[in-house]
């Protein structure tokens, strides 16, 4: 069981900044995120896009903002459970919560802060009959262990970086790699596109474009896919394969959090914005894009503010008898849990003769 003071669900900018504000109050944080890396949408969807409305930054790339936040919270040593989705929540008799992920990892904390953005990122699944029947029986959306594909014939569908990169990687592992994409053009890093071209020329990747997979065949396990080739030579044919890996990117889904008994409105969690962004369940807060209230704006800068007020309320909840006065970092400095100390340099007091 992982124990912490504030369990943050979602490691996007809002969740990350909450670690800093909690740290100033000497509260420890642990973050859960379904993605394998921190940063949420900023890392997953648009790391190379500039943001112009982060106060104090005329422009900053989304990926840089995440790097900066990670640097800023480092002294507070947050824990991370990445690549796992928060699945269930249970309230114990001592008023603490236990959140369990889809992989069974358990986390306990007196405060849960949901900073889940638009939800957890789930693979986009193609619309094919019998798709679910073959899931884990030849079809996978995420490659966990490439060795599974050794000496197998694999078909990959998609036109982005992950489809390109995995085709390249599996070309050396699988007995046969076929890459199917709806258009001739791929959207990915130039290196990857050129490498696939090279492997295609060498006959190591079988490229079928423009085409799409329109059917699945097999008894228990997947045995073949039906490919429909478009363009001048329109035809449908069957390709015997052991594995099919559709890589159509990820899309966010509110997911299991929607079943936690929280008040949901417009696909977001209703919170008390007049006070502390607490939900209808005391001890559970929702901050950033995942919450809603009158006048809500889904902006990173609003998430930062919400995270700050949430931490103050969490502190009062954990220490109801303690009196606390907010201290400016300029005055109090930043004392990390790792023993580091940042503070304003002392002014010199010296007479000038």
């Amino acid at each position: 069981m992982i124990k912490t003071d504030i369990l943050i669900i979602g490691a996007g900018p809002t969740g990350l900044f909450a670690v800093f504000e909690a740290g100033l109050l000497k509260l420890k944080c642990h973050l859960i995120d379904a993605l394998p890396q921190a940063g949420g949408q900023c890392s997953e969807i648009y790391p190379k896009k500039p943001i112009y409305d982060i106060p104090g930054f005329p422009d900053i790339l989304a990926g840089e903002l995440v790097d900066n936040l990670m640097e800023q919270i480092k002294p507070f040593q947050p824990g991370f459970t990445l690549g796992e989705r928060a699945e269930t929540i249970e309230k114990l008799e001592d008023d603490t919560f236990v959140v369990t992920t889809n992989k069974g990892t358990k986390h306990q904390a007196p405060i849960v802060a949901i900073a889940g953005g638009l939800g957890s990122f789930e693979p986009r699944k193609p619309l094919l009959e019998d798709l679910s029947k073959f899931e884990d029986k030849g079809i996978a959306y995420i490659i966990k262990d490439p060795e599974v594909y050794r000496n197998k014939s694999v078909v990959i569908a998609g036109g982005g970086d992950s489809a390109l990169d995995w085709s390249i990687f599996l070309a050396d592992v699988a007995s046969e790699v076929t890459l199917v994409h709806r258009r001739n053009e791929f959207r990915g890093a130039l290196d990857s596109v050129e490498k696939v071209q090279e492997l295609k020329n060498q006959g190591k990747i079988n490229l079928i474009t423009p085409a799409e997979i329109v059917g699945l065949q097999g008894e228990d396990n997947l045995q073949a896919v039906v490919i429909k080739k478009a363009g001048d030579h329109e035809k449908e044919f069957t390709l015997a394969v052991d594995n099919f890996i559709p890589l159509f990117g990820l899309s966010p889904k509110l997911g299991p959090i929607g079943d936690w008994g929280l008040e949901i409105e417009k696909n977001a969690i209703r919170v008390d914005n007049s006070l502390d962004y607490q939900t209808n369940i005391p001890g559970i807060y929702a901050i950033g894009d995942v919450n809603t209230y009158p006048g809500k704006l889904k902006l990173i800068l609003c998430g930062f503010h919400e995270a700050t007020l949430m931490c103050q309320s969490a502190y009062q909840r954990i220490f109801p008898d303690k009196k606390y006065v907010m201290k400016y970092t300029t005055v109090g400095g930043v004392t990390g849990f790792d023993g580091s100390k940042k503070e304003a340099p002392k002014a010199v007091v010296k007479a000038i003769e």
Partner: protein
Amino acid sequence: MSDIKIKITDREGVSHEIDAPTDMNMNLMEVVRSYELAPEGTIGICGGMAMCASCQCYIKSEHELPEKSDDEEAMLAEAFYVKDNSRLGCQIHMSEDLDGLEVALAPAEP
């Protein structure tokens, strides 16, 4: 600048004739959201960067639309329910020459 009339068929098949402003730097996805013709969280998920297909729509009138950008082409190539007349609403800027535009929202992805 004035408003233009647009006919939007929502995902339930209900047709709405609405006024869209041309002087507020809005795109079609934002117009749909401002009239709440699709539930929040099911349209414009990426915010208008052509990085999701939640604002996909079918163009039903004969209007000349600006060419698709590479990003829009690439996104539509990975989207579901795509037809020849599919476009991403977030890439269609509201301008006076779109008066009378008729579109239908594509189904939400499962």
